[in-house]
């Protein structure tokens, strides 16, 4: 039972990472791509870690995985926020044409 649940969570996580990866390449501008990338390292990594937590089978390892999960849960959205804010502050706007990610945040 736990094996099926853990595998399902892992599979769901991998699918999320895949979808996020496709989005990273297909979306038109920096902010859309950031949205997709942050899904990979928050939801994708979170689901994979949750699956590992279910499959770990030992309290010590489960605790460590849970700690990593908690860190990622707080740090990944923060990173995405910092990136978006930095991009906005350095003059990158969604509606401005030609503000693609290839120019980067620097002027």
């Amino acid at each position, binding site marked *: 039972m736990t094996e099926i649940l853990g595998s399902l969570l892992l599979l769901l996580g991998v699918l999320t990472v895949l979808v996020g990866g496709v989005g990273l390449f297909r979306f038109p501008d920096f902010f859309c791509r950031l949205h997709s990338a942050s899904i990979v390292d928050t939801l994708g990594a979170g689901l994979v870690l949750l699956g590992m937590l279910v499959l770990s089978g030992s309290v010590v390892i489960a605790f460590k995985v849970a700690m990593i999960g908690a*860190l990622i849960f*707080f*740090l990944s959205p*923060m990173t995405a*926020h*910092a990136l978006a*804010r*930095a991009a906005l*502050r*350095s003059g990158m706007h969604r509606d401005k044409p030609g503000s693609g990610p290839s120019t*980067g945040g*620097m002027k």
Partner: protein
Amino acid sequence: MINVVADVGLLCLLLTVALAIVCTRSPLSLVLLSGIYSIALCTLFVILDAVDVAFTEAAVGAGISAILFFAVIRPEDEPVTAFSWPSSRAILLGLGVGVLLLAGTLDMPMYGDHLAPAHQHLALRFLGQSFEEIGIPNVVTSVLASYRGYDTLGEVVVIFTAGVAVLILQPDNKKGPAKPGDRDRFAPELMGNPVLKTVLLRMIPLVVLFGLYVQFHGDYGPGGGFQAGVILGAGVITYGLLSSATRLKRIISDKWVTLGMALGVLVYGLVGVAGLFLGANFLDYSVLGPTQTAGQHLGILLIELGVGLTVSCTMVSLYYCFKQGES
């Protein structure tokens, strides 16, 4: 099978990032690419079961060295064209050295070859007898701290010397006022960002706790003084980044940091000398306790403390030196 796929993928990533580093002309991209390189390398180390090295690579390569570089690069230095191929002479030289290095690897034993010279001789004794002789499960720590204690003392002295050299070379900013352009060269708003501040300030105690865990758990799992030192240093530096180096200096003054650098080496050396006084060789911990393994435990604990102190203080001291201009 999955390891081979991961290895090949990571090595391809390393090659791509290295090529990008060669071609980039922008200091900012260079720092960010070096960080990516370090993280990929760190993952490779984890796959090779060298978790101790991976710790250090992640904390120093991707963390502290990037922070130090950010302290010295300026937005004015960003070139108009971010990427261009290096000159043909540089490419030729690089290719030439690369071919020589590849030729050099032909003589090396195959990856994972159990008959390789490194896996004969002493390695067998370390793996077979270190638990009886030293009494701690992590063979890496046994070899590093006890069998090769003298080499490790040398490494700590190297880190100490490097820290002292940077202290000597730093410009003396006390004479003149700091230039206004020196402060917060990149994105000052990022440091005042409330979300970053709220989350990261609460992470610092966790980082310090993790550093202490790595320090004292080094006998049983991957870790030890070097890794704990860089993690602790990174935690302290994070506070400096969130407020300012000046405020950090008010909590941990640079005098104490410099003292800590020297104190770590002193502790290490004194443990060695204590062995001499108790009638054994320099850095032989067996005589420090009632039994051989108890003595080894105590000696390893003390020298790892010395290593951790020197490494963490050197990291913070480097940060202070590079942040001199900030007021």
